[in-house]
């Protein structure tokens, strides 16, 4: 009898967790659908959009640039060391370039932006909720979804591909620096190898991924902020939720997008 009780309790616990998970997913989907519908309807806030583009895009450049620069360099070293096992050192430029634009550029930029921007959005909106600023917006005839969520979603979706494009160039340059200064590649040959083996699809697929990751970062930031608990602890938890959930969704959607874009 006691054993049965334990089994029922375990099943009930699993049931509760499953229901809570579905409820959370449902709330997120409704939130995203509402935000998307508000994107299409006036009023629009172009000033807010411009401010967010600056905040999300321009101010993330240093962190994304440094991340891709060092990753490009490390990638060149790794591919050189791996390639040397079967006399294929010459593939370094092309593999660095393809690896950066298809995979590492968008994923690393996405994760860095999730940490920098996702956290900031969740903390800002969470604090606004806790201090009744979101309620104040409503009483001032301003829809918080339109004023707070839509500009951030649009800005992140637009800024991320631009960030990744610049990050890709910096990352490839990092590989070039290591290749020419440390691994004795000829500079002209390195550049030729980089350009010759890269296709337009490599770049566009990375930019599509970047746009999706940007949307995810802003969505999880705004959603977590809007559903923040009370007080400093609630805002802190919302910030953590935003970064963790955005990071996991970026990695999961990266796999799905790779399947979609590259499976023959």
């Amino acid at each position: 009898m006691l054993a049965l009780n334990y089994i029922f309790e375990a099943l009930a616990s699993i049931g509760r967790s499953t229901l809570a998970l579905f409820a959370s997913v449902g709330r997120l989907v409704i939130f995203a659908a509402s935000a998307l519908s508000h994107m299409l309807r006036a009023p629009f806030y172009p000033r807010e959009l411009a401010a967010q583009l600056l905040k999300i895009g321009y101010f993330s450049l240093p962190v994304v640039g440094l991340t891709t620069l060092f990753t490009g360099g490390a990638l060149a070293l790794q591919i050189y060391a791996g390639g040397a096992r079967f006399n294929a050192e010459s593939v370094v430029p092309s593999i660095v370039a393809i690896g950066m634009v298809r995979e590492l550029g968008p994923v690393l930029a996405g994760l860095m932006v999730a940490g920098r921007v996702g956290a900031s959005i969740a903390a800002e909106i969470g604090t606004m909720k806790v201090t009744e600023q979101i309620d104040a917006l409503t009483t001032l005839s301003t829809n918080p979804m339109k004023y707070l969520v839509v500009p951030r979603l649009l800005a992140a979706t637009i800024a991320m591909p631009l960030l990744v494009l610049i990050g890709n160039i910096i990352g490839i340059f990092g590989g070039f620096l290591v290749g020419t200064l440390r691994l004795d590649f000829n500079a002209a040959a390195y550049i030729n190898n980089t350009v010759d083996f890269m296709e337009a699809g490599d770049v566009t697929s990375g930019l599509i991924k970047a746009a999706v990751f940007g949307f995810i970062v802003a969505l999880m930031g705004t959603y977590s902020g809007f559903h923040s608990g009370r007080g400093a602890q609630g805002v802190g938890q919302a910030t953590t939720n935003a970064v963790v959930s955005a990071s996991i969704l970026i990695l999961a959607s990266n796999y799905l997008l790779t399947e979609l874009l590259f499976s023959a």
Partner: protein
Amino acid sequence: MSAPAKIALNGVMKAFDRNEVLRGVDLSVDKGSSLVVIGGSGTGKSVLLKCILGIVTPDAGEILIDGAALNNREDFLSHFGMLFQGGALFDSLPVWHNVAFRLRQGKAKLGKADAQELAIEKLRRVGLKPEVAFQFPAELSGGMQKRVGLARAIASEPSVIFFDEPTTGLDPIMAGVINELIREIVVDLGATAITITHDMSSVRAIADHVAMLHAGKVRWHGPVADIDTSGDAYVDQFINGRADGPIESVR
């Protein structure tokens, strides 16, 4: 036939999970009248305001504005102002933009220069100097933030104003100044006002009528002049701030 109340609540109920906050609130405020809602912490005063605003949806009951159900909330909000307990000023905007925020929205929005001029005029109305307009909320004291919140609430000359704990956290002198400003503004604008507070000096300074909320219902409702002779033990305990009485105090 007398005119319908500006705001009327009939049997409004609201629960959060198992916590029944409002258990059938019946309340009305006449046009141009100032109602103060009193009651202990956690009795649902703020929830009551949020139900009227539509920020919280009641589980049951009806809320009537000018005798009719509220079908167009945007229209109602366009003639509405609210002073929040903590000010709820937008940190990222300078004071003038906070004050003129509503007037910078929509098709007929004010230009920057006009909005600044209007904001400075409203700030003067609440006793703040023009230079405050160009500061950010974080640079102001609590009392100044309350005044800026008040200036924002009256910027569009609303016909309905809510004040949520207008004097909480202020020293007695500043509380007195805010109370006087609220009374002046309500009288000058001829607005219908609902204020929620624990502060009995605010009640006496602001109210035409007082309603006491207890256990999710209106315990007593009457003219402010009658509050000391209400004959209700709950009201008596509350207004005299006594620990002993029918209202349980958790120690």
